[in-house]
């Protein structure tokens, strides 16, 4: 009997080695999670436009006659790098892109301007975040918008389907050094970028946090929403570890002026 247990143990260890050879020496938490606590940040951060991948600064330069300067697409599936919208959804998004600079309707304003909490995946291609790993949980805290997300690892069921949350309801598990989170119960009121990319509260997200080595994280999110897209699609964002600096207060709605000023031109 002890031989059987050992054989299984060795098998699991070999699988883990094969899955992630660079991380075999990774320290572990008291509950045996790989220890990935600390601060992380996207190498190319920006939330202006996903398709094409473009920063706000590059977009402005282009509008005043500068060269087109796009980043590599974050969308890795479909292979063409475009979000697979159904035609009606593509039309909504195109209309928003034409109006976000001179908003005349409340919905023309980006949700971040209104201090909405973005949730997944937008919060993983914009700010620095910190991972905390108390036993049985992974917690993400963000300085921007003082957003946070608590992900239980104990296999508990999702909350009732009628509860919709800004950060959704995530359930996590470790596969070697990859944290897999399945998220449902999404409120889906926050957009994916300034130019109007979106999904609805019908969406489900599967995220894979692939901890490649002590300083490198590959983030992947696969979004499924039959209401809006023709097929599931996946984006990928490279992150690097950051020094652990204190997070200071980032009040938003308390000092919000942008939406208020824009509103003078807006008729609900």
């Amino acid at each position: 009997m002890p031989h059987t247990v050992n054989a299984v143990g060795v098998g699991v260890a070999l699988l883990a080695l094969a899955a992630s050879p660079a991380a075999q020496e990774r320290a572990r938490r008291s509950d045996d999670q790989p220890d990935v606590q600390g601060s992380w940040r996207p190498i190319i951060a920006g939330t202006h436009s996903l398709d094409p991948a473009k920063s706000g600064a590059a977009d402005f330069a282009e509008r005043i006659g500068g060269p087109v300067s796009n980043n590599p697409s974050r969308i890795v599936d479909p292979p063409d790098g475009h979000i697979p919208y159904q035609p009606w959804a593509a039309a909504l998004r195109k209309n928003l892109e034409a109006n976000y600079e001179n908003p005349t309707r409340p919905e023309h304003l980006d949700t971040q301007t209104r201090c909405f909490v973005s949730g997944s995946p937008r919060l993983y291609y914009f700010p620095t975040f910190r991972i905390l790993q108390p036993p049985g949980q992974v917690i993400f805290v963000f300085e921007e918008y003082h957003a946070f997300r608590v992900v239980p690892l104990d296999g508990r069921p999702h909350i009732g389907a009628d509860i919709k949350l800004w950060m959704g309801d995530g359930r996590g598990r470790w596969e070697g050094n990859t944290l897999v989170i399945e998220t449902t119960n999404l409120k889906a009121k926050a957009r994916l970028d300034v130019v109007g990319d979106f999904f609805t509260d019908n969406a489900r997200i599967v995220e894979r946090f692939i901890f490649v080595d002590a300083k490198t994280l590959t983030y992947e999110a696969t979004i499924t929403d039959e209401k809006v897209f023709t097929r599931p699609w996946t984006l990928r964002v490279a992150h690097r570890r950051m020094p652990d600096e204190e997070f200071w207060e980032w009040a938003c709605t308390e000092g919000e002026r942008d939406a208020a000023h824009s509103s003078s031109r807006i008729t609900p």
Partner: protein
Amino acid sequence: MRVRSGGFLLLVAALALVHAFADAQTRPIPRTPDGKPDLSGIWQAFGTANDNLLSHSASTDGPAGFGVVEGDEIPYRPEALARKQENFANRATRDTEAHCYLPGVPRITYMPFPFQIVQMPDVTTILYEYVHAIRYIYTNGTPHPRGPIEWWMGDSRGRWEGDTLVVDVVHFTPNTWFDRTGNYHSEALHVVERYTPMGADHIRYEATIEDPKVFTRPWTIRMLLYRRTEPNFQLLDFDCYAFEWEKYYPYPGL
């Protein structure tokens, strides 16, 4: 045989019940490897402190409630008391809770929402369901950053005194109130919180409030924090500042 095994099952069930009850009553304070109390978990204050810190009758503003202030009196300076009364008259619009702003300390503790304490050796993080407020209580010996700084939730630095987590909080805005009746403070507010576990599922919470611009002496509030022990309990959200605009997103009608 059948009777005997039935009796045995009953006995097991009875023992389990007694055990569960005894467990709730006497379960020891959870501790971290270095022996300090582990405050981690989801907690909530119950009562009416957010309505009114002082003893009050039932009214259209809400249910009756016991006061939480030591001596049931807040020692306003005479000129400051007038401002408190003016606040009360304008409470529907002037209380920053009506705008869903970050409510400051200690008010965030007794907002009627649960919060989750995540205790680590160098920093204790508190995540609040109400407007997803976060506090970082540094317990690594670092001092407050040099002011003047005006933060809605202040700057928190903690230390352990025996089994009590003592948190020193400064650098506040003058905008938040202590309750819905207009009890208020200035930017000179200095709060010292004390979190003392009373067994596994209760924390005695005390906050001493000092603000020489508004009060003639420091004063103290006291209440219990209760662990939310329901199975699979978790924080939800209450982003009330967004309610007005949600209907326009992600697009109207969706």
